């Protein structure tokens, strides 16, 4: 139990006060535009971006990279995790390779992917998806290996087919683990999005941030950061809300 908890409007006040203090610092002349602009400067940059059109174009381009990559990375990670968590042969053969690969910093692999797949949308999606894959795989692998022992008795006694065992027991009891993995994957996706757009793109939020840095447009840079933060927050929030909608039993899944 939390001793002090705030309602949503109260939490909004907290954010609003922070922004206000920041803005006041700007009014007092404590902020330098080449280091950090006041919130009004960022809003001005957003209006500017809207008028010139790059604001929405960048946002949309980045979304079209992140979302397919999230889907692909999560799906492959979950699938691999269920198989490696249950099938000893698979985890003994493919597992070590995946573990070795996982130990490499995902960010450092991005240039390799570009070398391999070229500078195009596919390579960007692969870079992001590879970052999503590992947390989803590891969590799912853990979960699939931890299927309640009495469920194994149940499926044996009730003579479930292998397919039914996976569909009705293994996969559902792995869902909470996979979800935790996907939440980590979402955070990873935005890191990888930035990297992919930083090293090999001519559009997107990450590209805008890196260009703004070069030309000392700190307002544009902060705008980009704000976009990334909001997008990541919204993705996570939507994911959590929708998963509780689709799996209403989730909070009660512990036996």
């Amino acid at each position: 139990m939390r001793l002090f908890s705030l309602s949503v409007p109260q939490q909004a006040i907290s954010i609003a006060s922070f922004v206000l203090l920041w803005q006041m610092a700007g009014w007092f002349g404590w902020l330098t535009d080449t280091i950090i602009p006041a919130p009004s400067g960022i809003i001005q940059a957003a209006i500017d971006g809207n008028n010139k059109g790059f604001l929405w174009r960048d946002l949309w381009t980045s979304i079209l990279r992140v979302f397919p990559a999230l889907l692909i990375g999560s799906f492959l990670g979950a699938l691999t995790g269920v198989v490696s968590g249950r099938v000893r042969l698979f985890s003994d053969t493919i597992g070590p390779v995946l573990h070795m690969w996982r130990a490499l910093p995902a960010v450092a692999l991005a240039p390799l992917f570009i070398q391999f797949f070229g500078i195009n949308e596919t390579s960007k999606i692969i870079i992001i998806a590879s970052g999503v894959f590992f947390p989803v795989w590891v969590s799912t692998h853990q979960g699939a290996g931890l299927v309640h022992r009495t469920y194994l008795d149940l499926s044996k006694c009730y003579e479930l087919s292998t397919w039914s065992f996976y569909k009705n027991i293994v996969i559902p009891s792995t869902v909470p683990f996979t979800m935790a993995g996907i939440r980590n994957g979402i955070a990873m996706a935005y890191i990888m999005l930035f990297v992919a757009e930083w090293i090999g793109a001519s559009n997107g939020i990450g590209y805008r941030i890196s260009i703004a840095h070069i030309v000392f447009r700190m307002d544009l840079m902060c705008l980009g950061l704000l976009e990334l933060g909001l997008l990541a927050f919204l993705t996570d929030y939507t994911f959590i809300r929708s998963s509780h909608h689709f799996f209403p039993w989730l909070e009660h899944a512990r036996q």
Partner: protein
Amino acid sequence: MEISQGFAVEAADLNVRFGKLEVVTGVNLRVRQGEFVTIVGKSGCGKTTLLKAVAGLVKYSGTLRRQGRIRMVFQEGLLLPWLTVEKNIWMGVTEEEKQKGSVNSSSRKPEMGNSPNDRVQKLLSEMGIEHLRNSFPYEISGGEKQRVAIARAFAASPEIVLMDEPFGALDIFTRELMQTWLLEFWERHKVAVLFVTHDIEEGLILGDRLTVMSAGQLEPDHTIPFPRPRGAETKYTEQFLEARRNIRKQIIDDYS
């Protein structure tokens, strides 16, 4: 060797060991077709392991013969939290039958056939849980959960049902209701039941025969004489209290 005529379960010199620990020792057990046998014993006496051995869930040595399909009702109910009541019961249907059709509450008819779906629908109504068909296990009470677990066990029309303290977690009033209800249900279906409990009263009110289990061994059984149908009043007859006293003494003497 074939099982003796008229019997559902026959075990001779059945042993189960976990490493060096002997959990079930030299058990001889016979259950007739349609007979209700209860095993009463303290926690840790090996009753659950014996049931699991009969179900084929643990390795055993000795002879074990079973006639017909066998289903187990687990201690905690063990419903799948992600499936609705109706689909949980459907899980009990055999795989061959599942492939023939799917569970479909809209095809309810007054005259029920013997398709697996008809059977599931009939079980729902027999259990008095039709209104819960679309509820999830977390939305229903403990007594209702056990009814669903029992319905699931009967969904494949088994010949043998093993029950491992199915009412152990229920309060005494719900437990009494469930016992009465289980008796009515069993008298309609007449399957062989092997019912394990630590509650002497429960063992006496339900069973045709009662056997005490202690330290992995079964003792000579008692035939329970009370006429059926038995109601809650049966528990307060002189004869019942006498039987209960004797069995309690038998269990306590084993440990002193």
